[in-house]
């Protein structure tokens, strides 16, 4: 499993536009990095680049594992827990079906306790079409926890959440870092934990 991630002089080009250039950072076990910047500065593009969806026009992303260093994006992807803009939730499935699907897909057991942790225990058998935007976000958080990946990539993790939900995200992030995990979060809000910042 990945123990640190280093970015060296990343350049992102979308179409003819150079979104950002010269981006370098390092995140190690137990650390969090907040990616800040104006709308369109490339925060989501940077996260998609780290996830391996988008290839850098220039520069390297190096993941350090027990086996050594690697810049293979597919290998890196196996360590990534993703919370994107979209929640990836199907309205036709119930809350527990949705969670079970992703847990099984990621080869992990499903625990009802996860729903309790994110405050969705009562909605367990409710079709996701009836969930509010905040509840969908909470379900996405439960899925992130179920995946049990060491590197969390979070795109606007506080979006659509109420005050209690935002506090919950803060607690979960603190606990994840406390357990040796890593977080890279694109956000306009303070993360609420000790973290480095990267300005795009």
């Amino acid at each position, binding site marked *: 499993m990945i123990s640190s991630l280093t970015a060296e002089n990343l350049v992102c080009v979308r179409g003819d536009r150079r979104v950002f250039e010269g981006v370098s950072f390092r995140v190690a076990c137990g650390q969090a990095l907040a990616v800040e910047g104006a709308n369109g500065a490339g925060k989501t593009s940077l996260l*998609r680049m780290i*996830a391996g*969806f*988008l*290839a850098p026009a220039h520069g390297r992303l190096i993941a350090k594992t027990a086996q050594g260093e690697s810049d293979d994006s597919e290998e890196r*992807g*196996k360590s*990534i827990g*993703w919370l*994107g*803009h*979209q*929640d*990836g*939730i*199907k309205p*036709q*499935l119930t809350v527990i*079906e949705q969670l079970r*699907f*992703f847990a*099984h*897909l*990621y*080869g992990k057991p499903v625990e009802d306790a996860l729903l309790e942790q994110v405050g969705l225990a009562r909605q367990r058998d409710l079709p996701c079409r009836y969930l509010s935007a905040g509840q969908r976000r909470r379900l996405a958080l439960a*899925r992130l926890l179920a995946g049990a990946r060491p590197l969390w990539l979070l795109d606007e993790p506080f979006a659509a959440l109420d005050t209690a939900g935002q506090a919950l995200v803060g607690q979960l992030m603190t606990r994840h870092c406390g357990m040796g995990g890593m977080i890279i979060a694109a956000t306009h809000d303070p993360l609420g934990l000790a973290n480095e910042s990267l300005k795009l």
Partner: protein
Amino acid sequence: MSPFVTLLSRDIRLAARSGGSAALALSFFALVATLMPLGVGADLHLLARIAGGTLWVAAVLAALLSLDRLFQGDFEDGSLDLIALSPLPLELTALAKITAHWLSTGLPLTLLSPLLALLFNLPPPATLMLFVSLLVGTPAVSAVGAIGASLTLSLKRGGLILPLIILPLLSPAVIFGAGAVSLVLDQLGAQNALGLLAAFAFAAVLLSPFAAAASVRLNLGG
């Protein structure tokens, strides 16, 4: 449960709960097969002669109805990002989706075909060949369709372009499938046509997951 079976069973469940895309395809297939004899008239010999081609084309068009959503639903709601980060390679993801599409559309169309063959006065041996050719050939429709669906993934109205991409590629399936039915109707051996259809379907199912996965990768970065 393996990740492959997990994705396959979810896609079948979604197809069953999404307002019945299979029911839509079956209704379309049945309506075309019903309208054709009404348009052509009561020439029983002519109806039997055109049955293979008509039902094959109707089956392909019916299967097309739900093909554009093969990857698009997961792409638009962000599920495809999460699936791409799972231990399941994108090639197997494509194969699971092709299998789910065939089980929810191609197989029901095949099972309905003998009933619709009655409307065309197709003799029992030719009806059996129609059934077998659809059983062998419809996986190719889902597989080739997956390539088109992945190529049009990020287009807002990709469903309109999809038939233009995949219908020419499916012409071998229609030629060999309908040809096999005609050969049985003429009391000739149809093994060669059926063999070629099976070879086409096998190659399509084997190769299309790689093409679809490559196209999905490009779209995830776009």
